[in-house]
């Protein structure tokens, strides 16, 4: 018996990539999954931060998909390489700081490199024409195939009948008639196919798979770049943009105010990198100060910290201030009046 042909599937953890891989497996193709971690993925760790989210069943959906399919899943850290995609997208951004087309080209290219290194035959994605406004359009799908270098080795089983034949089809080991011709934003065909295969409990992300598609998150990232005067970030930066209230009283510093217990606990891991504050006379949030605050700024920040504590209506709240050197001191401050925090301080 001859070796089966081999395909590597981009597995996001969503329904489309699950189905695309399954359709290929139906034709006897050996499939392995690949999942890229950019640091902006909504998937995974962020579910664990906020206390209210801890009650949800916790799973990595890409791994869940791999288990449903019975395939291997290779998770690849692309945090460093991905920065150039976020900072300098050749094809520009979507409605927020989401470089969707560059992202798709980059990921398919990385999959192509993996394919070449491991002797696989083609790449599978769950793309559907018209499903996404930027990266999944009739005119941009050939761009992904061409610029990634995958060319006709890129197979989109869910909409293949709407596209030119790929190399596996031309070579005769993939039956085009058994592929699909989905298009548009409707999810009904995918849901019907999922039911056909008996897939239940698949992920249904409400806001996409990437924080860069989120307006509020993008505003915070743009603020970070603008105030630093350079378009750079590290992993800690982009993690902290996901948590807390971000309040910027001045261009040279901002407060990150934990909103609840889960966020406070998460932020505790970052204390040593920042001047940080914690009310001691009343219960209240952990606050990190990002930037270079002077003594007046620290007093103002302590008053804001007090404003978000249980002592917000008290005459005086004691706030412990700890510097990056680990030295702590107590500041007794009057809480900043809640209604007087300028709206434009909130990022």
């Amino acid at each position, binding site marked *: 018996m001859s070796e089966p042909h081999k395909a590597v599937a981009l597995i996001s953890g969503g329904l489309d990539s699950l189905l695309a891989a399954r359709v290929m497996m139906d034709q006897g193709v050996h499939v392995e999954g690949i999942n890229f971690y950019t640091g902006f993925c909504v998937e*995974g*760790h962020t579910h664990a931060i906020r206390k209210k989210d801890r009650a949800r069943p916790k*799973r*990595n959906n890409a791994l869940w998909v791999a288990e449903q399919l019975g395939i291997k899943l*290779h*998770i*690849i850290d692309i945090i460093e390489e991905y920065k150039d995609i976020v900072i300098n997208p050749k094809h520009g951004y979507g409605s927020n700081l989401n470089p969707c087309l560059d992202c798709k080209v980059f990921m398919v290219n990385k999959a192509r490199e993996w394919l070449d290194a491991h002797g696989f035959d083609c790449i599978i994605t769950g793309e559907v024409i018209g499903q996404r406004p930027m990266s999944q359009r009739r005119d941009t799908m050939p761009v992904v195939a061409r610029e990634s270098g995958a060319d006709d080795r890129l197979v989109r089983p869910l909409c293949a009948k709407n596209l030119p034949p790929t190399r596996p089809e031309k070579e005769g080991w993939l039956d085009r008639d058994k592929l699909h011709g989905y298009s548009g934003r409707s999810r009904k065909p995918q849901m019907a196919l999922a039911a056909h295969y008996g897939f239940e409990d698949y992920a249904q992300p409400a806001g996409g798979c990437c924080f860069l598609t989120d307006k509020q998150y993008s505003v915070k990232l743009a603020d970070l770049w603008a105030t630093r005067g350079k378009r750079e970030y590290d992993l800690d930066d982009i993690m902290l943009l996901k948590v807390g209230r971000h309040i910027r009283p001045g261009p040279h510093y901002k407060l990150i105010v934990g909103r609840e217990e889960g966020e406070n606990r998460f932020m505790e891991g970052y204390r040593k990198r920042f001047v940080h504050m914690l009310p001691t006379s009343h219960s209240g949030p952990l606050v990190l100060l990002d930037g270079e605050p002077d003594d007046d700024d620290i007093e103002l920040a302590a008053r804001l910290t007090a404003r978000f504590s249980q002592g917000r209506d008290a005459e005086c709240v004691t706030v412990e201030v700890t510097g990056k050197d680990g030295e702590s001191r107590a500041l007794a401050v009057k809480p900043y009046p809640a209604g007087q925090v300028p709206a434009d301080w909130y990022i």
Partner: protein
Amino acid sequence: MKSVDARHLLCPLPVIRAQDAVATLQAGDSLEVLCTDPGVIHDIPAWCRVHGHEVCAIDEQEETITITIRVGSH
């Protein structure tokens, strides 16, 4: 036994660190992964299941979670 320190990393990074370490080991070798993100209790065993590795032990001591993996055939 080889050990990987993935403390203070959030999922899926501990999974990736474990995966990269396992790639350097032979079938039958053991790997110890030190973590703090509780998500690893679900994610590392799930990763092991799809790759045919065995989770021998999950030990939670205060904030550190230690997962011991026996490597299956690659």
